[in-house]
């Protein structure tokens, strides 16, 4: 039996304020660990884009991943009103220029501290929806009601909910029923039998492999899929194809 190959929607590198024992932060270690876990390529953002400033971190990211095809850059975005970040049209132009296929944002109080409501971020969401650019959104950055508003107002925006946990089904199921463009990153979804239940109820297409490395365990993340009690084709979808398909839809021209 061959090992699965993985396309990871959620990695980062760079120095962090808090580094736990045993973890790493350099891109070389990320590449080595990806290889040992069977992760062929990964969407990556720079930790400085979260913990310092999106523009500065995005720039560091682009310099760092140049010539490394296995690391696909993800930009951190934020609203433009203070002049700290480009307006949506200018952002779209720059993203195309740099072949950016996915973005993330950190509106939470522990990070960049802004409302993700329509009055603040609506223009940004509209541009991403129009360009079919997936938004990676950490569960710790939002709340269920905020997510409901976002997905209702922008029904074609592909949102991958990351950093989820095992206590969410009683809200998640209702959200998955209502919003076809909501997807779930797998590593934190440690519901016993949860992956199998999502596949039965909503289809494997709603699950996207992500590891959260280097903060969270890459080997733990791949094991959830390697040992899932679903078909081999469903595993391949979750491990690789679903993310690849989302990125194929991004308007590049």
């Amino acid at each position, binding site marked *: 039996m061959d*090992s699965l190959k993985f396309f990871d929607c959620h990695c980062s590198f760079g120095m962090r304020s808090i580094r736990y024992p*045993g973890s790493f932060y350099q891109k070389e270690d990320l590449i080595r660990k990806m290889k040992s876990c069977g992760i062929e390529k990964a969407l990556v953002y720079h930790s400085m884009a979260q913990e310092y400033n999106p523009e500065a971190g995005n720039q560091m990211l682009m310099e760092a991943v140049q010539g490394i095809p296995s690391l696909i850059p993800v930009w951190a975005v934020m609203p433009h009103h203070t002049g700290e970040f480009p307006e949506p049209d200018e952002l779209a132009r720059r993203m195309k220029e740099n072949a950016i296929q996915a973005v993330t944002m950190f509106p939470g109080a522990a990070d960049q501290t802004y409302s993700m409501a329509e009055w603040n971020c609506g223009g940004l969401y509209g541009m991403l929806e129009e360009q079919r650019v997936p938004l990676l959104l950490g569960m710790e950055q939002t709340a269920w009601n905020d997510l409901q508003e976002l997905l209702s107002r922008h029904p074609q925006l592909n949102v991958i909910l990351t950093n989820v946990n095992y*206590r969410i089904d009683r809200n998640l199921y209702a959200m998955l029923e209502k919003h076809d463009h909501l997807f779930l990153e797998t590593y934190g979804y440690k519901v*016993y039998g949860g992956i199998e239940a999502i596949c039965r109820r909503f289809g494997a297409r709603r699950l996207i492999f992500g590891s959260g490395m280097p*903060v969270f*365990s890459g*080997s733990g993340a*791949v094991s*959830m899929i390697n040992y899932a*009690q679903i078909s081999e084709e469903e595993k391949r979808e979750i491990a690789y194809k679903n993310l690849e398909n989302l990125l194929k839809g991004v308007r590049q021209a």
Partner: protein
Amino acid sequence: MSIADYVKKGLPLHEIPVIDCHNHIGLWKAFHIPDPSAEGMLSGMNRLGIDKVCVTAHSSIGPDYHFGNDMVMDAVARYPDRFLGYVTVNPNYPEDMEQEIRRCLPVKGFIGIKLHPSCHGSAVDNTNYTAAFEAAQKGKLPILIHIWGRENVADVDRLSDRYPDAQFIMAHAGGDVLSMGYALEVAGRHANVYVDVAVSTAYEGNVEWFVREIGSKKVLFGTDMPFLDPRPTFGRVGMAEIGEEEKKDIFGGNMQRILDQRAEGGSKD
């Protein structure tokens, strides 16, 4: 094939004994678990190659330990080769503790005691737990304790001296990362203190960190199944950058040693 190769290919690890020291059974109030029954757990165990699970019921760490201990008794009776039981007690019912321990521990397949001070609103060193610690001491039994935070770890530090024959398993290795460092220090100092690797926030490299700090003989494979999916923990150990013998210690060798050293006269699984 190495243990890591099995995990990478998603194959059950039948080649070595695998004992999960930290499990539950049954429903839990706070979230949905698709199938938390004994049969649901067996399905996951077979998929991974887990030979035995050591179980306390969710109900026991919640409101009704009689209901929960009965549920464990039922699972142990129906699947004696796969399920081992912890008797769980609640310090808010001290008048019943000795009796409940006497009711459960002699039952074939019961191997130790489980305490969940956090869910029961208690400190680890609550004197109402005395009967439980004394039973563990007398029987040289494993006593699995939910440990979260430095205060809990400090309690185990003291109690493990007071009850040197009880085998203390610090669940979640202290819980938060700062407390983990302290828990490793305590486990390293006491021959009768262990940590398990059951954590929901599975940080990169922490199995390697544990082994580097205290060696593989003091680290136990525990998954918290079905409270949590066991697969990430299985992979964290199976693919850890440690030696094959160290993985064997963690996956089952250490827990088997703890079970083997129990005093004669108690129940034998």
